[in-house]
């Protein structure tokens, strides 16, 4: 603990309270971003942080649920430290709130270290490009949107779509070829319902993952302001597990839309000039300081892979929340209401989804030599089929040429056999590629222009090919 905490600084003269913000008379020696205890009129103590310090006044952001009335007769006490998370390997298997305090009734963590929750920026020159394929056992992901260690890949969902089931399936099934490795899961629930949060925990029971999980839970009924700290607590725990304990860490943050709403609320309390739709102009940078904590480092064993989940307001991908996220993350898995209505699980929109790190993770020695070609050909054929499907809704399928009809069927079969998959079905990546090949055999061989002739000879099922 730092020296200055021996000299606790106290102040009373509270001039103004506004939402979760408190403006107090300046006190010498207060540090920017320092942590504060706020003693409310009724004696209760809340935590806060000095977010603006000046000779004339100090602005304090108070965590926890407070009303302006509570703040009126309150006292503040400066602690001489910035926001830190006590970390230790014993955090595995434990539950914490959005401020990093245990909520599972277990003993307090005996810290190995106190870590700054904002972390420090990784030096880009110290990063190691992610390249290890994570097999999720899900065809649409492994085949077309492969995930690699150190990537940040969000799920863009909509209200009522099965993002939680998909995330749980990924957690259950994800493996890296030929490696046991030390693995940890960091789970942050941000403003989701209690039921949703416990759904995840139930899913992990019996898989052995629960003992390797650190969970930070801020449910819908917990203080909104703590949604700002929840993902940072989670990433700080991940930092510790990855860079100090050499673990491969998967971080699930759900639902980041609630985080962004909290950010907007706080910004409007601070009377900042809003940018698009009331969200603060710094939301891009703010989200980036969270997501950029994913990665691999040279000379370090561990890794941090982040999979945030967010619901797109009105299913609108151009809404600032998914939009800014897409500009930061290395791709996105987008769920489709259309496929969901057709009864397809996993309802993943093939065209809108993308994994930007895929090319590093696939190919000979990693998945299979034909992977890249299969990936490109699948897109080309499926997108042609979907285009014709769209036209045929107007002019009728019968007015299409024979060739075009083949593509129409291809699109349907692709959704039925490749995109569709059981919730508990785990497909090897080779099986995923073989499914694609069996679908390609419907098409005229000459149309397989995105696949090298060598692979066509090697992998195309013989004898059942369509027209020559």
């Amino acid at each position, binding site marked *: 603990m730092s020296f200055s905490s021996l000299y606790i600084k106290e102040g009373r003269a509270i001039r103004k309270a506004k939402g979760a913000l408190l403006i107090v008379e300046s006190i*010498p*020696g*207060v*540090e*920017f*971003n*320092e942590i504060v205890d706020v003693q409310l009129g009724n004696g209760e103590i809340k935590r806060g942080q000095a*977010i*603006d*310090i*000046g*000779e004339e006044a100090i602005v304090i952001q108070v965590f926890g649920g407070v009303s302006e009335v509570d703040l009126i007769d309150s006292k503040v006490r400066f602690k001489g430290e*910035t926001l830190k998370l006590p970390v230790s390997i014993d955090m595995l298997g434990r539950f914490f709130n959005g401020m990093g305090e245990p909520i599972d009734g277990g003993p307090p963590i005996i810290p190995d270290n106190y870590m*700054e929750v*904002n*972390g*420090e*920026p*990784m*030096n*880009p*020159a*110290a*990063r190691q*490009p992610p390249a290890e394929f994570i097999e999720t056992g899900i065809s649409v992901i492994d085949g077309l949107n492969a995930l690699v260690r*150190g990537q940040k890949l969000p799920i863009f969902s909509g209200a009522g779509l099965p993002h939680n089931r998909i995330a749980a399936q990924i957690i259950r099934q994800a493996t890296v070829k030929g490696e046991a490795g030390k693995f940890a899961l960091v789970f942050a629930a941000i403003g989701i319902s209690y039921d949703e949060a416990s759904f995840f925990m139930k899913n992990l029971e019996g898989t052995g993952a629960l003992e390797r999980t650190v969970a930070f839970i801020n449910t819908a009924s917990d203080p909104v302001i703590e949604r700002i700290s929840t993902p940072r607590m989670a990433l700080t725990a991940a930092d510790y597990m990855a860079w100090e304990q050499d673990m491969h860490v998967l971080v699930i943050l759900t639902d980041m839309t609630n985080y962004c709403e909290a950010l907007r609320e706080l910004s409007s309390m601070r009377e900042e*000039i809003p*940018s*698009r739709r009331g969200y603060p*102009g*710094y939301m*891009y*940078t703010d989200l*980036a*300081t969270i997501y*950029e904590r*994913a990665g691999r480092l*040279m*000379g*370090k064993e561990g890794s941090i892979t982040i999979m945030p989940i967010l619901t797109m307001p009105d299913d609108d991908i*151009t809404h*600032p929340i998914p*939009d800014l996220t897409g500009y*930061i993350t290395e791709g*996105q898995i987008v769920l489709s209401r259309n496929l969901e209505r057709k009864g397809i699980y996993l309802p993943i929109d093939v*065209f809108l989804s993308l994994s930007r*790190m895929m*090319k*590093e993770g696939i190919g000979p020695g990693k998945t299979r030599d034909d992977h890249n070609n299969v990936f*490109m050909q699948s*897109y*080309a054929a499926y997108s042609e089929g979907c285009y014709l499907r769209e*036209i045929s809704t*107007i*002019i009728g399928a019968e*007015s*299409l*040429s024979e060739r*075009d009809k083949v593509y129409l069927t291809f699109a349907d079969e692709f959704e039925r056999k490749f995109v569709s998959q059981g919730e508990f079905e785990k497909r090897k990546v080779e099986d995923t590629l073989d499914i694609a090949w069996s679908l390609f055999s419907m098409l005229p061989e000459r149309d397989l*222009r995105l696949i090298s002739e060598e692979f066509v000879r090697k992998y195309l099922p013989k004898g059942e090919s369509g027209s020559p």
Partner: protein
Amino acid sequence: MGKIWRVSGPLVIADEMKGSQVYEIVEIGKAGLVGEITGLDGDKAIIQAHEDTLGLKVGDKVEGTGRILSVELGPGIVGSIYDGLQKSLLTLVEESGSFIKRGVKALALDRNKKWHFTPTVKAGDILGVGSIIGTVPETSIIEHRIMVPPGFKGTIREIHEGDYTVDETVAWLEYEGKVSELTLKQEWPVRKPRPYEQRLAPSGLLATGMRVMDYMFPLALGGKAAIPGGFGTGKTVALQQLAKWAQTHLNIYVGCGERGNEMSDVLYSFRKLKDPNTGELLQDKEIFIANTSNMPVVAREASIFVGITVAEYFRDMGYDVLLIADSTSRWAEAMREMGGRLEEMPGEEGFPSYLGSRLSSFYERAGMVECLGRPERKGSVTVIGAVSPPGADFSEPVTQNTLRIVDALYSLDVSLANKRHFPTINWLTSYSLYTDAVGDWWNGVYPEWANTRTAALKILQQEAELEEIVRLVGPEALPEGDKLLLLVARMLREDFLQQSAYHEIDAYCAPLKAGLMITTIMKFYELAREMLNSGIRVEEIRSSPMVYKISRMKDISNELFEQKAKELWQEMEQELAADKGGVL
């Protein structure tokens, strides 16, 4: 020396700062965090801190340095990786490990390394600003030309060949009795354009190896271009392609507020990839400036100016330099963030009202110039900036302000990205005003360029018009001539415009190959039209083996292509002879 009066995020206000100047660099607090004065108000200085201000206190000292934000220019710069303030990131790794700690200093140029200097002038020579006094072999590709820095001129008194550090004197220059010492290094303030003799019009193609750029929307040396597009439309991949294959002497890649993994990917691959021109390692012609999205936002604002200043310096040596900025939107957002803290009157969408003028103060530093000093030489800076419009909506302020400045636009299209048509440069909405400026260049390489380009663009335009009809009546209801046009347009799109950055051979397409490819498709169209006239149906033409062969042109190497194209044309004339009457 002043003291802190207020701290709010990266904004620091210091009191008792009389005598400071705007843009002066200051050191803040015990840790000596670096900041830049952006405004003065009586005794108070408004400071933007370049590092995280966590832990600063009211009353902490603030010291002026008397310097304004400048870059160090000299040997050792090529191949380096800097942050937005030209700190060497590799030095930072050595000093403070994998994470960037606050207050750690890292000089841009190595002070201990010796460079071999060979004079190109001798004692007694009279030199003006910008004159080259000698050279240093900096990398396998770049010869660093040491110039008389702005502000100096006179007669060389002494100059010696030898091995020097960047601080040691290599020459003595006398003017009106005053002797100045010249070293291998000079400094220049980043916000001020470097001087030149005369501005020239952009000319000559900046060949990129990307067909849709080189052929359809060419960029001229000394030109300025923007590449806007929604997330995932391929801005970064396109810019990385340029950094790899552009036929320039030197490239400067500014990663401004973007991803760390992307930067490390570039750094890694450029250590292994070879420059197609020289056969040497690509990193020998690159300078990287990486201020990723999680690094301090004020340094992000500086990074673009640092980049363009370094570009001008190499231009002054007589080189063709390409400056790549990914993304100028993050740069504009940094300005917005800082403006917001200062409670400035905002313009559109919260951006500062000077957004437009700041953007042009950057882009206007592009250009082809006649350099100062002897020997006479020309140099150029070409600028291309990515723009990341929110919601892929081009009507937003950064895109709109940029469009007023640039002369070439590569507009990236989300719907093409969804179809995985890469590069997603939309052929209907992109443009280049440099077609005349590159005419001579193309005439020397492939004189049919102008004709084939116009013809191909026309077919694509017609396709777009027909597409609307197809959506109403279906493709089969069209007349045969239109069906053929659609087939050819599709070949142009898929077999010419589409070009994967990850294809072993096709990633880089030599301009001559591009010309021959498009000619092949146009020849096909001609022959097919004759077939139509003699009664053969498009359905049959479509299944000709020639269509398949044309689609495989991308797999043929640049070196073999001319030969193979001739063979293909011959074969085509036999296969698609109209008088063969449908024996396909």
